[in-house]
């Protein structure tokens, strides 16, 4: 008869194995491949040799590092803006919506469930030279010629991605705000704190773990973005993720692409390690 301990193996082993095969091994594989010398597609029957040539090549190409810096900067702006803009929504849901909270929560979930590509396309159509914003302004007589700056720029990528991530960013902030003991706010009020003091001294600090979580849940996918930049970014709004993708399509130098990906991975893991020091992980896990 199968006891409890015996059952544990059936519960825990499959996830371990699955994640080892389709997650850990692939990540170790790109690290290994990033030390191969090839500058084209790789024939895996060739012997494995070790070289840091790919990393040297990347470090000698300022354009790559510039793109990396730009992508990190864009992701910082996007994650900050999405979190800040999501905060009032989450605050409203947690403190003001009362019995209608469920309705508003649903209203928040719907845009999130709308296809990501569709939301990006909405902005492409709005920002474009013949797009909604230009034609609306023209129709209203505000402008006579379309403003070209709207689309195919880093700004277009930033605006689009902020829009895409707001609903997602609101969820962890909302969860953190909901956990705040109402008694703390009442106690602050009894001690003479006004609404602003209560908000800045009690609500904001207590909701900070949620805000930090929201920031990173936006930052990580954004820093590796290549789909949105390729749709609305043009050559100026090209991100580091696009460079990686290029090495697997047109340029096809897999080892270089792998090295670029490893650099991005190390950078993200380092940033997350910093974040985990900021928020108490064990409390989130429990």
């Amino acid at each position, binding site marked *: 008869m199968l006891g409890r301990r015996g059952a544990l193996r059936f519960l825990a082993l499959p996830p371990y194995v699955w*994640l080892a095969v389709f*997650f850990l091994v692939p990540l170790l*594989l*790109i690290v290994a491949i990033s030390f191969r010398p090839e500058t084209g597609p790789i024939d895996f029957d060739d012997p494995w040799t070790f070289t840091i040539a790919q990393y040297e090549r990347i470090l000698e190409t300022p354009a790559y590092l510039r793109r990396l810096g730009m992508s990190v900067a864009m992701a910082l702006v996007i994650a900050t803006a999405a979190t800040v803009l999501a905060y009032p929504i989450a605050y409203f849901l947690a403190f003001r919506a009362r019995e209608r909270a469920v309705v508003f929560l649903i209203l928040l979930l719907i845009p999130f469930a709308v*296809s990501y*590509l569709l939301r990006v396309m909405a902005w492409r159509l709005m920002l474009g030279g013949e797009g909604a914003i230009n034609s609306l302004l023209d*129709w209203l007589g505000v402008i006579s010629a379309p403003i070209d700056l709207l689309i195919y720029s880093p700004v277009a990528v930033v605006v689009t991605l902020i829009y895409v991530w707001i609903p997602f960013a609101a969820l962890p902030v909302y969860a953190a705000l909901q956990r705040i003991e109402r008694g703390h706010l009442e106690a602050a009020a009894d001690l003479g704190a006004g609404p602003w003091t209560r908000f800045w001294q009690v609500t904001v600090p207590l909701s900070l773990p949620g805000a930090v979580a929201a920031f990173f849940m936006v930052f990580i996918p954004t820093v590796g973005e290549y789909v949105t930049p390729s749709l609305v970014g043009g050559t100026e709004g090209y991100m580091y993720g696009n460079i990686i993708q290029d090495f697997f399509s047109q340029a096809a130098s897999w080892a270089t692409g792998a090295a670029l990906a490893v650099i*991005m991975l190390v950078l993200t893991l380092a940033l*997350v390690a910093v974040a985990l020091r900021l928020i108490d992980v064990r409390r989130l896990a429990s």
Partner: protein
Amino acid sequence: MLLFLYFPIALLFLFSFSTNTVLTFPLRGFTLDWYREGFGDSALLEAARNSVVVGIGAASVATALGLGVSIAVSRFRFRGRLGLIALAGLPLIVPFVVLGVSLFLLFNLADLPRSLFAIAAGHTVIALPFATLILLARMGGLDPALEDAAMDLGATYPITLRRVVLPVMVPTIISAWLTCFIVSFDEVAIALFLAGGDPTFPVFLYGQLRFAQRLPVLIAMAVTLTVLTVTLTLIAFRLGRRKE
């Protein structure tokens, strides 16, 4: 703020019924032609079908694995317990482009073709954190005394899981499954690296977007499928909130 979130979506929705081929104001006539054309496009429907197949596969595996993780972690003390939680959550902090590249190279190394299976495998990995979070939250709220009682009455542990734990967990399992399905159904960044001859719908959409004259049909079909995912999200939300 909510209005701001809805405005662009509403605009696309209107656009999909308009005779305009570029989104300019004022919108002209009303038409269902784009929808008619979309439903007559076999490549497009095939891609949508592929997405459903991948979504079902990825959601089923991710939910099953997530259930294993959540029971193991919430009911057992064992070596590697924290490791298992960390591992199940880790895909959340790896940028998709990195995961896409790694799986692309894995399938190349193993000499396996890029395929719907490859996409589904990738989607399982990114959906697992969501399944685990949802299921773990419910398992944590479930009184272990229920299981002890069943076993005191002579049930073996597997029977206890099947007859006591699973029935209580059904709404949460469905909610987790639907969430995973939507994560997979909408995912494009990993899928682009792993798609072989058969594209999923987002991959197909992405590939066709450069053809301006195709735009209204594509938008119309994307709107149709979005109605589907929104419905599923609402069902998942409803089931996830149900309290016993």
